[in-house]
């Protein structure tokens, strides 16, 4: 506690395990950004914990030279909650996939977000089950052909960020896998946020769902499919596009700056504290010509579950004194036989 943390480097976070993702998998980029970012957070390595479920993405903890727990499919949020309740000092990162986190694990994700446990959730969304060889997932687009849907899937995809907002999340962000310059600061903000931070990472699976995020993951970071949000800033994207609300309605429209008299002043200004605005942005459908909202969609901190649970304990001890079993055994009605 008293020793200053030694200056850590990327290497300190690289485990001795061979990374076993397919060549070209987007997970590599995320791993590398994570390993480069952690040393900048001024934390102790022994306090860092990665928890995951099952899936390609969920192999992540094996490659981090920190504490790591590769648990069972879909339940990582529950494990992580228990870890925080046991030791709130730990710095917990949860890695999950669109199958792990939203298919089998949707309920635990929901309740973790609702409770606002102080940890970071990284959901690698490749819109596919990678590990089990390519079946469609809850984020696959309608008509997706996969081994289990050879005639195309029929169910509408979930927007993970919208789901998170509906579940009461207090930090929701989104970023493509390979844009390290964008991803690194978002990892830092997620880490800095007290409570559950939900970061959806748009990840490419070159084997089973290549180019699922084409355009949105454009390296230039200024494609017309990318709307980078900044709190307090007007919503501009591409070369000259912007978003605006139709007056007194909830309909968004894409406008071109300079055309039909539209200026920056007409654009919607991002407000990280507005849950319903974030919901609107989270649900924009690219197939209708909208860009994909990236960056921090929503951030509005509130007391965390672990903190309040600990407070109740501290309060009980302060008020009633530390309990002893002996006293408890003799409390209430007792009697003696000679």
């Amino acid at each position, binding site marked *: 506690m008293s020793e200053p943390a030694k200056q850590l480097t990327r290497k300190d976070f690289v485990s001795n395990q061979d990374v076993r993702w397919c060549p070209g998998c987007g997970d590599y980029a995320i791993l590398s950004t994570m390993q480069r970012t952690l040393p900048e957070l001024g934390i102790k390595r022994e306090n860092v914990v990665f928890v995951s479920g099952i899936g390609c993405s969920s192999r992540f903890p094996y490659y981090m030279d920190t504490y*790591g*727990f590769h648990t069972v499919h879909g339940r990582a949020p*529950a494990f992580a909650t228990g*870890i925080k309740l046991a030791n709130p000092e730990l710095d917990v990162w949860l890695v999950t996939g669109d199958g792990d986190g939203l298919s089998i694990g949707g309920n635990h994700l929901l309740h973790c977000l609702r409770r606002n446990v102080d940890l970071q959730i990284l959901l690698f969304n490749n819109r596919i089950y990678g590990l089990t060889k390519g079946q469609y997932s809850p984020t696959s687009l309608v008509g997706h052909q996969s081994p289990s849907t050879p005639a195309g899937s029929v169910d509408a995809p979930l927007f993970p960020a919208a789901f998170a907002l509906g579940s009461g999340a207090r930090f929701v962000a989104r970023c493509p896998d390979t844009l390290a310059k964008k991803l690194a600061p978002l990892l830092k903000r997620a880490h800095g946020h007290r409570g559950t931070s939900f970061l959806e990472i748009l990840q490419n699976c070159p084997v089973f769902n290549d180019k699922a995020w084409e355009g949105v993951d454009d390296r230039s970071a200024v494609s017309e499919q990318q709307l980078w949000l900044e709190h307090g800033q007007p919503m501009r994207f591409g070369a000259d596009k912007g978003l605006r609300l139709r007056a007194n309605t909830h309909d968004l429209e894409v406008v071109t700056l300079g055309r039909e008299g539209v200026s920056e002043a007409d654009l919607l200004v991002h407000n990280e504290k507005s849950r319903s605005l974030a919901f609107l942005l989270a649900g924009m459908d690219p197939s209708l010509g909208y860009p994909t909202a990236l960056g921090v969609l929503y951030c509005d901190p509130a007391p965390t579950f672990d903190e309040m649970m600990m407070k109740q*304990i501290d309060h009980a001890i302060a008020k009633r004194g530390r309990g002893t079993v002996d006293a408890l055994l003799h409390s209430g009605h007792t009697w003696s*036989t000679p």
Partner: protein
Amino acid sequence: MDNPAPPTLSKPREQLDAVVIRFCGDSGDGMQLTGTQFTQSTAVMGTDVATFPDYPAEIRAPAGTLYGVSGFQVHFASRDIMTPGDRPAVLVAMNPAALKTNLPDLEPGGLLIVNTGAFSRGGLKKAGYSENPLEDDTLSPYRVLKLDISKMTLLAVAEFGLGNKEALRSKNLWTLGLVLWLFGRSTKPTIEWLREKFGKRPAIRDSNIAALRSGHIYGETAELPEEIGRYEVPRASLPAGAYRNITGNEAIAWGLLAAAELSGLQLVLGSYPITPASNILHELSKHKNFGVVTFQAEDEIAAVCSVIGASWAGTLGVTTTSGPGLALKTEAIGLAVAAELPLIIVDVQRGGPSTGLPTKTEQSDLLQAIYGRNGDSELVVLAASTPGDGFECAVEAARLATKFMTPVILLSDGYLGNGAEPWKIPDMSSFPRFEPPFRTDPEGYHPFVRDEQSLARAWATPGTPGLEHRLGGIERDYDSGNISYDPENHQRMTDVRAAKIGRVAHDIPDQGISLGEDEGELVVVGWGSTYGSIHQAVINCRDRGLRASHVHLRYVHPLPRNLGDILRGFKRVIVPEMNNGMLSKILRSEYLVDAQGINKVSGQPFKIQELEETIRAELER
């Protein structure tokens, strides 16, 4: 600690060795409270006591219906008793439905106290009586005390200005007062309890006290028929010491607190409410000043997963549930087996299969507990045999879980969970402390380095510098803990996991004989809550000169090493269980002895007599 002298009375009381009394009435009639308070008052006088609450699954079933009947049976005696008794000798019936459902159980010639005030036409109809049983010869086999308890209660509390409905609520206390008088018990403990409980609602407190006193006084002053004797059940010669009443659920909750104290571990409970286990969660939630974290999870799976996480992080992780919940936790428990983490799973069993009979008791999760996981995934299974035994079992579960880095399932059931018994308060200093195998030294560490003796792996908790490691459900290399798909390694790890559980058998006490010779004609082998019935049945048989012994298991997996020898010492092995034959299967397979099951699956505990007859029949075969 109070120990009031029995009230002095003019007429002498008939001395009885033991009495079984059952209070029954509508769920709204407060029978559970009546029974609990009676238990309290009689235990305080030094008799031994056992109880059996039996209540409907509905929260508040409509008044007067048959399925809305709630009962509470108390067995108290001047000797050591084991069960709440087979059939009541005294029945208190507060309404027609209660009479209808409970009368068949009353002993012939038994005493029936009945509240005539509830025998309206509507009440009779709801109970399915076409004739009023108070008026025909339905009750002729019994000694009957007909009283309009409703009316007498109203009179007793008139001064407090309550509404009719509110005032009538006290009729259970009037009844309690009368019954306390009948058995020479003091009203003092109940009055004290009412004072505490209703301190903030003086009208209710005072009317309840008045009703209680009025019932008591009624007994003393009214001219009761000759045949309605007053009784006395003298104190039992229980071992000297301090006593309290305790239910199985309380005992387990407190045992867990004790385990935490003895090991220095923080207790983390992750649970999801389910009948009849919820009370453990409730009880522990009250004791935050012990540093215990209680987490009501979103479901059973999250509950167990959260505490597996908490265990890894260095605390004592516990989850509590009943059968359907255990089914849901199965997959995650497998991870705890594979990752070799300590974990306690308490299963308070209820009637199955599926939702089954949530408020009834059964022992039908045994095979699920031992075998119900994918893969070869052994763990430790213990079973509590009396309400109070839950305390020691919980401590033992924690000791084994942490020493061997393994999940432990502790089986209880609805009968133990809700039933109360006077319990000799243990001396905490008599329990040895135990040290979990925490590791802090990075030298030579990997997550699966094992203790040579116990074969337990080292417990390295996040936050410890230099011991960073990865844990998971994919098979792990014996020598590094890293993922390994190697066939020989899988065999080796399978073997060591099995061997570790084998070592547990070396760590637990040899199986003792609860009663009787250690070899001979017949042994009755039991586990769990059947303890009391079996024990008394064997006592009774032995009193008749039959050569039967009783062996009762706490350790159901792994089994004590000497058990095979014991069983082989008897010509016959019979195994009563409240399931279709589970322990008997295991004993047959393990020892190739022809163990025969006595099976009862009705949601009700064994009656002593049933077992006695079976033992006699077996011996006479």
